[in-house]
């Protein structure tokens, strides 16, 4: 127990000493014994969704699977066209396709929820009871943005007020219709219907419809997106959104909700190097486990990689076969070191064995899977 505590303190001081100056955006130190409390005081340095660095990172982790971006959309049936190209022309075609895919993968904005409009322009009690219906007045001037348009409602009791956000959206759609948007929200966005659609794995279609129908800062948009991301997180179906424009939004939401463990593990399953590091770079100030993020952040020369806080067994299981040899080659560096997992177990690596010391169980389970090569 004493050794455990000492090891823990050693590691914490080690990580703090080594990583605090390199912390970059993070200027707050964790107090001893509370690894995650520092996350709350980072509002001043908190990266926003619209930061160019954040956008860059999110774009990179979204991936660029051309096959998925340009997969056949249901269109009129036409026979396929074949072109004969040289290698250079093919390379050029692929480059232009990549460019267009990047445009298609542009991320929709993530905005805070809009505050309800509650503005009374005038109250005329003399008009009380003049009519049964309200009058909704819209300004039709062509070149003003829809957000700044004057839309007022005169109630039957004589109050002249600004229209609420729902009325605004509806009236703007009446006079300046947008393709694909309906006047009243489609029934698919109700809770029970959403569940059914999720069971059919059609999250992407729901998100596309939501993007067309609602404004990015409306409560419906945020509710539907939150429900979709929760469902994806629950079932671990991150692959559905992988090369689409919604992936960045999902990653951002999960990180802000501090539940991105599943996402990280899923990404580790598929690739080992850059995406994880880029995720960590952006996640520094919102990642729950500073140890993980600081481990990932460090500029790593190939021959000296520090021990990971996630159990190396997990990483070893998930990496591809051709990467396992490389992983084994630098795993022995961690011999004799202790590091933590997110569940507060300690793994002590000794050559080709690793022991999991669990606080609650206090037993050692030798695991011989690691680095038998």
């Amino acid at each position: 127990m004493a050794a455990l505590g000492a090891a823990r303190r050693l590691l914490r001081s080690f990580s703090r000493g080594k990583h605090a100056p390199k912390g970059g955006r993070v200027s707050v130190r964790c107090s001893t014994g509370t690894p995650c409390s520092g996350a709350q005081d980072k509002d001043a340095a908190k990266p926003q969704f619209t930061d160019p660095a954040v956008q860059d990172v999110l774009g990179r982790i979204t991936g660029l699977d051309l096959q998925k971006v340009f997969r056949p959309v249901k269109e009129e049936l036409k026979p396929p066209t074949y072109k004969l190209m040289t290698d250079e022309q093919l390379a050029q075609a692929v480059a232009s396709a990549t460019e267009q895919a990047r445009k298609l993968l542009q991320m929709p904005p993530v905005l805070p929820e809009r505050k309800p409009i509650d503005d009374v322009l005038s109250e005329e009690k003399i008009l009380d009871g003049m009519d049964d219906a309200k009058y909704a007045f819209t300004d039709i001037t062509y070149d003003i943005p829809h957000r700044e348009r004057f839309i007022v409602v005169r109630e039957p009791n004589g109050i002249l007020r600004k229209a609420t956000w729902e009325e605004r959206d509806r009236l703007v759609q009446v006079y300046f219709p947008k393709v694909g948007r309906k006047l009243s929200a489609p029934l698919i966005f109700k809770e029970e219907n959403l569940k059914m659609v999720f069971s059919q794995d059609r999250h992407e279609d729901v998100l596309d419809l939501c993007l067309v129908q609602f404004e990015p800062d409306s409560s419906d948009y945020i509710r539907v997106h939150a429900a979709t991301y929760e469902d994806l997180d629950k079932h671990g179906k991150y692959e559905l959104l992988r090369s689409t424009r919604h992936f960045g939004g999902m990653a951002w939401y999960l990180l802000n909700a501090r539940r991105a463990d599943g996402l990280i593990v899923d990404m580790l399953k598929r690739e080992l190097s850059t995406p994880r590091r880029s995720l960590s770079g952006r996640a520094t100030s919102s990642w729950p486990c500073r140890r993980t993020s600081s481990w990932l952040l460090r500029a790593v020369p190939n021959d000296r990689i520090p021990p990971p806080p996630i159990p190396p067994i997990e990483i070893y299981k998930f990496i591809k076969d051709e990467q396992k040899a490389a992983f084994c080659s630098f795993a022995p560096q961690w011999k004799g070191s202790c590091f933590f997992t997110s569940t507060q177990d300690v793994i002590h690596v000794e050559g080709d064995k690793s022991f999991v010391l669990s606080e609650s169980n206090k037993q050692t389970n030798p695991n011989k899977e690691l680095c038998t090569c």
Partner: protein
Amino acid sequence: MVHLSSLLLKNYHGGYVVIRLALAGHKQANRPFYRIVAAYNKRARDGKYIEQLGTYDPLPNIYNEKLVSFNFDRIKYWIGCGAHPTKPISKLLGLAGFFPLHPMTITEAERQRAQTEPIAAGPGDDLQQGQKEAEP
């Protein structure tokens, strides 16, 4: 009846421009819909206008709203050119808050209130009388 031919009217500018309601879809019975229009005074109500400035739907929709649209930019231009708004247009603009309230709007509201109050009071008295007679 005097029909001013279109040739004459092109060159005839003795008239003035008005902003008024023109009935659109006038072949549809029992479904009025008005366009707010800048037109010469002597033109037919639904005839050729200079510019459309908005719409007015007098029948309320499912949200109990009567939809009115105004192109305020162009309305300001035509009023600046000396166009005369008609009475219903002045009332609508008064309700919208663009013009001050039209006196007839206030008068109509008062008349409406005067009409609804005795009706609300009347049947109540009759019912009470009926109950008193029925009891004994």
